[in-house]
């Protein structure tokens, strides 16, 4: 175990703690850090959405059975949900059959559109990479202005 802190003498404090643990016949606290490191990876939105749509395109499939209620009431709700699923699944399938087909089309359309977006994105990146840097020419020098009064137009 490592201690961090500008206002403590970390090594001395850790040594004291080790000493006290040893006095109590307990093992030291030398384990490696179990601190999770690093930032979370990017989740690609197009891929995530496609996966999520695929996962949920079948409306006849139940979500994990949960309830926010606790105690006996909560257990009763979970039991009731399970019983409903067990006894009424065939009716659920019948009622949501067309929705299932429709969701499949939405999923497939999204897959095609997102693939097209990706393809176009890659093409734009490719074009930008090959684009020659624009050379900015120095501006043409303005003609010198003669001092004196301008002639009046007739």
């Amino acid at each position: 175990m490592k201690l961090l802190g500008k206002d403590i003498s970390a090594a001395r404090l850790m040594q004291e703690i080790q000493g006290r643990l040893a006095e109590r016949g307990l093992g030291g606290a030398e384990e490696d850090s179990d601190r999770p490191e690093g930032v979370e990876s990017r989740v690609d939105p197009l891929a995530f959405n496609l996966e999520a749509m695929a996962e949920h395109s079948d409306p006849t499939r139940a979500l994990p059975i949960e309830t926010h209620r606790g105690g006996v009431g909560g257990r009763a709700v979970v039991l009731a949900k399970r019983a409903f699923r067990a006894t009424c699944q065939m009716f659920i399938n019948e009622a949501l059959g067309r929705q299932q087909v429709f969701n499949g089309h939405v999923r497939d359309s999204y897959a095609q559109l997102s693939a097209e977006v990706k393809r176009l994105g890659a093409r734009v990146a490719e074009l930008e990479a090959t684009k020659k840097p624009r050379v900015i020419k120095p501006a043409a020098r303005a003609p010198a202005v003669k001092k004196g009064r301008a002639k009046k137009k007739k």
Partner: protein
Amino acid sequence: MEVHQLLANFTLGDAMGQAAVGFQALLRRLGLSGQLYAGEVASDLRSLVKPASQLRPARGDLVLYHHGIASEWAGRLMHLDCRRGVVFHNITPARFYAGTRLEEALNSGRAQLAALADSVELSIGVSDLNVAELREAGHRNVHLVPLFVEEARFDADQAAGGLEAGAPIVLSVSRVVAHKRVEDLLSLHAELLRLRPASRLVVVGGYAEGQQAFVRLQARAAALGRVDFLGKVSHGELVAAYRQADVYVSMSEHEGFGVPLIEAMAADLPVLAFGAAAVPWTMGGAGVVFDTKHFAALAELVVAVTEDDAMRRKIIEGQQRRVAALSAQASEAALKVALGVHREPSRGIGRRDTRPSVAIVVQRFGEEITGGAESHARQVALQLAAEMDVTVLTTCATDHLTWANTLVEGAERDGPLRVQRFRSEAPRQMRAFNRLSDDVLSRPNDRVTEEHWIAEQGPRAPSLLRAIAESREAYDAFIFFTYLYAPTAWGVPLVGAKALVVPTAHDEPPFRFEAFSDVFERPQVLMCNTLEEQQLIQQRFPNAARSRIVGVGIEPPEALDRNAFAKKHGLRGPYLMYVGRQETGKGLKELVEHHRGLVNAFHDAPTLVLAGGGALDLGGGERVRVLGRISEEDKWNGLAGAMAAVAPSRFESLSLLALEAFAVGTPLLANADSSVLAGHVARSGAGATWHSSESYVEAVRALGGAQLRDQALKYAGAFRWPKVVAAFREEIQRIRKAK
């Protein structure tokens, strides 16, 4: 440009909502007005936060969307035809909630974060971790603007309530959810009980009672003993917990910032925290961060930190430095850079020899408006108009209880004054407001609660605030009247050093709100009415801006008929006269009660005359005359003929009635509980004060004699308009001359 903020939902006590309200205060300091919007907001909070469906930004406005877990508003933001930005508060890694419905919402939030990258021009992370994750998600213009904690809100005097005894008391503040690892706190507690059997573990934060995981925690806690799950607590109770505990411990395995860590530091409580995610950055080298959960070793660490006074003191000193580094000023500076706000309101808009251009901001305005501060504002405006271009920025309201829009919106003239009226939002519901006031005025509060009260107090006129923000270059100075109302509370920071504030402050519960600190600390100068007001402000706000005593000018009409009022209203014998609003809080009921006692005891007691508008039922009775509103002529003649003017209110910052009475040679009978009134009586020697029925009788008996009249006239001689105008002129010139 306005900067609006958008949240998926807004609830009291929610960290993201608190951050948005804190950001709004910073944005105002940068001269940017704007509103808060949320997808879901309770109906009683809609004065502070509007439903997101009402968000209609102009093309040049910026909408800052606060992002965390998945929300439909991430997608809808991308379709708003305006400038867009995101404030990222982090998302708990989905691995902590694998197999639950939450898992997908967390992953979805991350996908939305990446999708936002190309649709926003500005991305703000509230910690270094959030900044890194924004970059990882593809955001480019990324800035770190840390959350901040207002230190004063965690002072010992903000504590309310107490914890059960323990030695030591270990505190942790967090919702009881999986990644906060409350079970690890229990493991630590088990080890600590071996070393210090009197120790106590206190967990503050919401939990789902009856949920399997919590039931298991409760069972383990009961087996160990000396564990308290306090649930959600009030702000005062939270401060009490921080202040009474001996050490704060965080076992959380994921924090996007960790606000309670800084709150604990602000309350001088040593912090020990597992260094997960943003925690090491938030701690900033203060407190103690550990990287392994070896509970026996941690128990020894708790004992060392709580019992070694020298180490404890050093840790607290270091934590104070960290709190100072995460101040509102630091966040303001970071936000300024992020938004690219480079300019301060410029001073000296025109040539110094031109007429100054001044805006007067006041909650109501008009000749017919009764109200000390409002009539004070109009008098000052008319006096200044002789040598300045004066514009009055105000609402369409005449009624200060409902703020109903009874006057026409837009520009109009009032003699030499240009008056610009703005509509206020939905009329105030007094019953709901009184309920809220009963709830919050008696206890310490967090900023959200105070801002909610100010919003309910009103008048809420977003277009008035926008006009102030947009015209801050157009005027040399802005003169705000009355600290207590929303246009002043939210308007002063918009113009900062261009503001002159006439606070009309007195010692009343809202005066203690920290949310008013900008009104007293950010203007160029505070134009106080009395010495007592100035002292009160300096005592409450030690960092208050420079102040001076200015007051008002009193000019009674030249022709006065001392008998006309009594004759007109059929009064026989001497009378005492009150002129002003007849409503709760003015002390009128107590006055009438005292006066009835006087009438019962003395057959020659004077008549008490109560004049002015209002709906208070005072009953009347023998030698108590309740009149409605009276004309100016009646007022002056009435005061001139009165035995004394009566000022029964405890809450006064000046009392025009007292000064007007003195100006016509009439003494003052005043409530001694008002330091301002007592000051007038003491300094003038022209009157008497009461604080009870008995002393009321004595005070009335002490009135009379030519000497009082002379002293009253002499005292009133100091309140002249040329002196007042000179003070305003000097302050406005000071702003014009400043570079």
